[in-house]
């Protein structure tokens, strides 16, 4: 899974959001490590939607309807994909930790 897909799914796991919010929140969650540039972001959103991992949803209650923004939410397929990716990452991290254990050459 592409890095930007993972971070977008991570943000959408919390709540449905629009593009600019996703960008801001991804930055916050990674303490500025991840910076999603606009074209990368919107392209990834299109790709995720095409893959069925996210879908467009109506703007939530209380949102400013004057601003024409598309809100996205994670689909069950997206949730599964994120969980799978997290597991894979975890396995990789375990391997790395094992490799770095003191006493191993």
């Amino acid at each position, binding site marked *: 899974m592409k890095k930007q897909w993972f971070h977008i799914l991570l943000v959408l796991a919390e709540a449905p959001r629009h*593009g*600019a919010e996703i960008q801001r929140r991804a930055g916050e969650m990674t303490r500025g490590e991840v910076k999603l540039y*606009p*074209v*990368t972001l919107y392209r990834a959103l*299109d790709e995720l*939607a095409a*893959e069925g991992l996210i879908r467009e949803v109506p703007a939530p209650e209380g949102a400013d309807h004057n601003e024409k923004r598309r809100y996205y939410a994670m689909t069950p397929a997206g949730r599964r994909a994120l969980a799978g990716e997290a597991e894979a990452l975890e396995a990789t991290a375990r391997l790395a930790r094992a490799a770095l254990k003191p006493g191993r050459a």
Partner: protein
Amino acid sequence: MERDRYLAVLVRILPTAFRERHGEELTALLEQMKRDAAPRSSPLRLLRFYAAVTWDVLRQAHGTHSAREFEPSVSVSRARGHRPSARRRRALVSLLDVKLALRMVARHPLLTAVAALALGVGIPASLAPTHVWHAFMAPLPFEDGARIVGIRTWNTRTSRPETVSVRDFEHWRANLTTFDDIGASRRAPWNVQFSDGYAEPVRGAEISASTFDVLRVLPELGRTFQESDELPGGANVAIIAAEIWAARFARAADVIGSTIRVAGVPHTVVGVMPSGFSFPRDEVLWLPLRGEGANGLQVVGRLGDGASLESARSEVEAIGLRTEPVATQLGAGIRPEVVTTGVQRAEMPANGGNDPLMYSIQLLAIILLMIVCGNVSIMMLARTSARSGEIAVRGALGASRRRIVGQFFMEGLVLALLATGVGLLAASWAVQRFEALAGPEFSMMDFGLNRRTVALSVCLAVLCAGVASVVPALRATGSGIHGRLTPLVGRGSAMRFGAASTTLIVAELALSVGLLSYGLVWTRTVLLDTSGEMGIDLDRYLSAQVLVFDPTYGADVRAYPDERASQLAALQVELKRRIEAEAGVRAVAIAQAGDLPGSRNAPRRAVVEGLESTGDSPGAVVAWSRVDVDFFRNLDQPVLQGRDFTPADLPEERGSHRVPAIVNTTFVEQVLGGRNPIGRRLRYLPDAAGPDASYEIVGVVGPLGLNPVNPDSDAGVYHPAAPGEINAIGFVVDLIDDPMDFVPRIREIAAEVDPAAMVRDPMLLSDLAEREWLGLRYLALGPVLFSIVAILLSAAGLYAVMAFSVSQRTREIGIRAALGASRASIVATIGRKAALQLGLGSLLGCALAVPVMISVSGDPLVHPQSPVLVVLGVTSGLVSSGVLACASPAVRAARIQPTEALRDW
């Protein structure tokens, strides 16, 4: 809030479907990021932001293009069944090619640098003639400017425009029906004194009220002229430009109604024109056009609805015949005609737009560019041959020839476009420098880069990319690319350089010898510091020019009636007396303004009687100066032989005696061959500068800055000029203190003596000289730059051919080495072709350069140097650079080990 145009352009790179879907949000996010990135608009952070988002767009653009078939609303199963890559359109050139091309450009920095320099100089330079031409010929920068045309009287015998009188203008205005209106103007500089008492020369024009209607401009403040302003005896009114309003009135709203003194006469300001307006050329002050007998008008008209240049032309010709003055003039070959304002401004024949000279210059420039292209092509061919393996593999894997050629084309295109971009930026900088140097004279013309030139440059870049990359690629993929897999296994490329590359390299070498010799001569000439050889310390003197301009007779004093000439004479005498009386002034010397030491005097051909040469160009080119009788005394210049001028030499005292002349030592050496000049008679070959009279040489002076660029060639003749005979009057003031401190005082004195007298260019004599000769330095830069490019190209071409030959013949060299050939003989075998090309090129170059050089050294501006020596020096330098370019491949050839070369056999 204002939108960022750059960001808008960036977003437009993205495909329409993506833009329609996300454009608004994307733009808002970009703007937000920009605000976050640079809250205090720190330029560095802003730059980083722009770089990052540009990279983001470029990196992702390809994906967004290919993702256009994505339908986000489709179901997961459908979407999975429609992978975008399967439906990607097969284009001749894709963004992948752009990426590959960029990588290739970065991987071969030397090739990139040489090719980019060549194309970067070549493309803009080859478009320069047509660019300048179009700037000259552009319509006036006013509303619907293409409908404004010029009406003039043309002398078919002299091929020059004749002066247009007020009578002609009024006749046309009353009778012409194809025009909405016509207007006339006449340029005249005036001395203007503003309310703060400061007097300065101002570029102005007398202008008819109708001109403002023709141009369709409205004033910023107040009004333009009315017909009543043109009546004789009417109130004196003036219109000023926005720049005068800002500089002299601090943009005060109550400027309307204030008084300025134009040539000493009070005028009321009735209007302020908008910023940027100037007409007929670079004027900033306008007075109403008055006067029955006035002539020298420039007439413009706005074509009426439905009228064309042709219909207006035939009407003007028909109307022009009806009045008697024009009818009689017609006998003298003078006829009225309608031309575009560009033609009118350039004072060229009406059909000048089809000037064959212009087209041949443009053609020559394009041919030169094609030579440059050909050379880049050789380099690309060499590189292509090194990649024949890659081409073969790609071919074997199913890439079509079209696809491979497309990729090579893209590589060439990226290179050419990069080079063109840099070249255009450099050209734009040069244009700005030129405009700053040229001053307001060209203010009506826009020499800046325009869409047309940029578009033409891009077209040429595409053409160059085609010549430089498609030809090698076609050759590389030519006779069945699969056959190239065989050489790939170890024999090197199967491609060969043909006679075309040899011809190109030889042509280029020849051209380099010619250009470089020419460029070197000029460079040496303009870079030499000659201040020690001029015989006068130009830094010590203040110079100023005082000009009297008569609206009827202009500035040419020869046309002045006696009364006007005696006013001018009185002015000169009084100014000199007043300046000399000032404290701190040692002396005041006077000469015709253009003849001051350090200026570019008008050259004339002089013949000394009894010493006439019988060549094609008889006579010697000499600088010709008109000076006050006290000129040499006041500049501390001793007369070395004979006598100085005296008041008895002036026309009134002289009677029927011959006009005397004083020559300088260079004249004695170069024209007289060291013979005694005193008493010899001198005459000029007839030209526009003066009559063919005979003069008697009475004295000899030392060098006096007649040719600062080349003091060795400053043969000159001085003649005495009486007050009233020169205008503008050039003053050279010798001061005890800092000369520049005296500038305000000179202005004051001039304003007191004659409010109409204009003080121009008060500056150090050395600064005046510097300004006069600066253009020459820029002129010299052209050939030098071109020759550097030509040399680089020919060296790079030689290197490419040589390196290619070594890589191609590795096997052969290995066998030779195995059979016991010495290194020297191997190098000789490899280098034979390069040596032949170098030799042929140099020989041709010499043959080309020697006549060029001989003609150049005849120019008195050029520092004398032996043409043959320069050409030989340049040739040997060029041969050395060629040998140097071949050195690395030759060494590589000599080091080839038989075991390695034959290993894979």
